[in-house]
């Protein structure tokens, strides 16, 4: 552990930054007017992009199942389920919306940790419950991103990466505590309650719909914990940094200084990366290349493709091939229903081929009819991966997500497309309205889609977030 001296340093005592207290003070003390305008703008756009993902998620069978089963958590006219008519208790809304944001892996990240899938549903559900203003929701989103980024950095040398990082039960509790008006002690207790049962995930669970719980449960439980703490339930108040606390429980290595480094001055929200297409981030540049090839090859016929080589950072192949050793084959266990579509969200081979064949990658490509289409199945056997050392280095030194896709056709012609950074990266943005509209298609009417989009982009002007949330329920 990288230790730092506490204010009352005693060299004989183990000492790390008092992260729980400092993060609680940050969460309670941050004033909307203190947040730089560009950071507010990023948070607002994060809401647009994430809710677009949530709306699209409603098309998936997994979310139909969740909607069917979540009634066990009770009913109540409190919070919005994006893209559905009913209103439910805030923890339920956070659970569902987080699941919908992630069911086709269409959510964003800061630094190295997924963020919007936990932060946006928590901010809206807790915000609706507390009837706060749009500015308060935006402040909560920024708090969530800032805390999430720091906890991910503190555990980056451990076993968890990306979406699997078990850090969200910290930021969701802090956000909800702020929105519920907890005092500092109750806020620290909210984290203590939320983080007591550390929600690590079993690697094999990523082959199934249970993936939707990875941020959904922390979102639900963070809200519940804040409510319990506000009512007086006490918990350990240094649970984040304590040597027998949360960080040391979930990560083999903890860089404790990262937990509070630059808090309130270095805005990690600025590192937000959003996804134009639903798939693991490592696959996104290859998807963009494949769509470009589909569009630019005259009379493109997937039946004439003989070989597809995907070049990129080593981690692209690592993630892409993670389920390829399954017997009898990944596609067969998906066909049998033993796995769901979820492992295909990480499979760069599937993502590249589906994008190449269909000229798009949306929720539609994750339906059985497309997964098992003969064109996609034929080409899925013809993809190989190569590590591009330069792209590999650029990823680890500067979070550059690159890929080069080379097609060899049956007449020997080769076509190549390359991207050095994914569309949606902090240094290569796209218009999130495109994503929102794509997600809302078939869920909200075109007119309501535009109305909701405009309202989200004016979120800081509303006195009660429920006015905006109401536009996200189909009329």
């Amino acid at each position, binding site marked *: 552990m990288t230790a730092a001296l506490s204010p009352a340093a005693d060299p004989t005592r183990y000492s790390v930054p008092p992260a729980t207290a400092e993060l609680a003070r940050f969460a309670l003390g941050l004033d909307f007017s203190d947040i730089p305008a560009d950071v507010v703008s990023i948070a607002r756009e994060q809401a647009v992009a994430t809710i677009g993902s949530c709306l699209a998620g409603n098309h998936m069978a997994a979310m139909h199942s969740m909607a069917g089963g979540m009634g066990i958590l009770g009913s109540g006219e409190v919070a919005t389920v994006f893209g559905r008519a009913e209103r439910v208790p805030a923890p339920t809304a956070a659970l569902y919306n987080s699941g919908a944001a992630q069911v086709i892996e269409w959510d964003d990240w800061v630094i190295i940790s997924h963020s919007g899938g936990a932060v946006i549903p928590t901010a809206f559900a807790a915000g609706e419950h507390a009837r706060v203003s749009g500015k308060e929701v935006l402040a909560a989103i920024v708090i969530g991103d800032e805390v999430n980024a720091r906890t991910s950095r503190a555990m980056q040398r451990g076993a968890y990466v990306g979406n699997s990082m078990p850090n969200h039960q910290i930021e969701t509790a802090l956000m909800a505590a702020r929105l519920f008006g907890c005092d500092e002690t109750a806020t620290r207790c909210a984290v203590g309650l939320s983080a007591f049962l550390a929600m690590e995930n079993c690697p094999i669970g990523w082959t199934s719909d249970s993936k939707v719980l990875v941020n959904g449960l922390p979102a639900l439980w963070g809200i519940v914990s804040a409510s319990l703490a506000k009512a007086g339930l006490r918990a350990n108040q240094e649970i984040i940094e304590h040597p027998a606390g949360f960080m040391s429980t979930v990560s083999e290595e903890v860089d404790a200084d990262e937990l509070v480094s630059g808090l309130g001055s270095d805005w990690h929200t600025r590192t937000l990366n959003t996804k134009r297409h639903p798939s693991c981030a490592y696959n996104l540049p290859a998807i963009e290349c494949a769509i470009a090839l589909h569009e630019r090859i005259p009379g493109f016929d997937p039946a004439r493709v003989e070989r597809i080589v995907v070049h990129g950072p080593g981690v692209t192949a690592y993630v892409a091939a993670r389920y390829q050793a399954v017997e009898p084959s990944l596609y067969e266990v998906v066909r049998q229903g033993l796995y769901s579509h979820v492992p295909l969200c990480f499979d760069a081979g599937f993502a590249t081929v589906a994008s190449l064949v269909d000229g798009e990658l949306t929720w539609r490509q994750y339906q059985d009819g497309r997964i098992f289409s003969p064109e996609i199945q034929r080409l899925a056997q013809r993809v190989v991966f190569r*590590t591009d050392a330069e792209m590999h280095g650029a990823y680890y030194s500067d979070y550059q997500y690159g890929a080069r896709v080379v097609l060899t056709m049956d007449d020997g012609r080769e076509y190549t497309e390359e991207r050095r950074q994914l569309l949606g990266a902090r240094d290569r943005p796209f218009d999130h309205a495109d994503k929102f509209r794509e997600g809302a298609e078939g869920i909200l009417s075109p007119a309501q889609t535009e109305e909701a989009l405009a309202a989200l982009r004016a979120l800081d002007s509303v006195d009660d977030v429920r006015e905006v949330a109401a536009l996200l329920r189909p009329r």
Partner: protein
Amino acid sequence: MTAASPLEAGLQHVVALWEARGAGLVSRRLEGALGRTFRLEELGGPVFHLQLERGRALWGDGAGDSAPHAEIRMSAADWARVLTGEWSIVAVVLAGRAPYPKHQRRYLMQLSLVLQTLLLSEANAK
């Protein structure tokens, strides 16, 4: 003279590649794989140990002198595909054919990523 097992032949290849260009592929997030001793076993076959350091690799028969940080056991057929880079160690774990004890996870994950990256680097892969 008997032919080298898939594990032994693959390790010879890995060590040569590593000493040629491996260190440049390791970032801070992956450096946990360096300086660790791995015990590699081919089920029903030989056992080797491997330790990667910047610019060199130490390996040999048996478990080595020090207690391993992580142990990897899989069939010859699985090793053959892992040591070409087609699959990673973690891919075999997720297929349920290799153990993944919690206290060894990060070493296994990081070695898995480093090995596959090395084996698929363009200068090596056909």
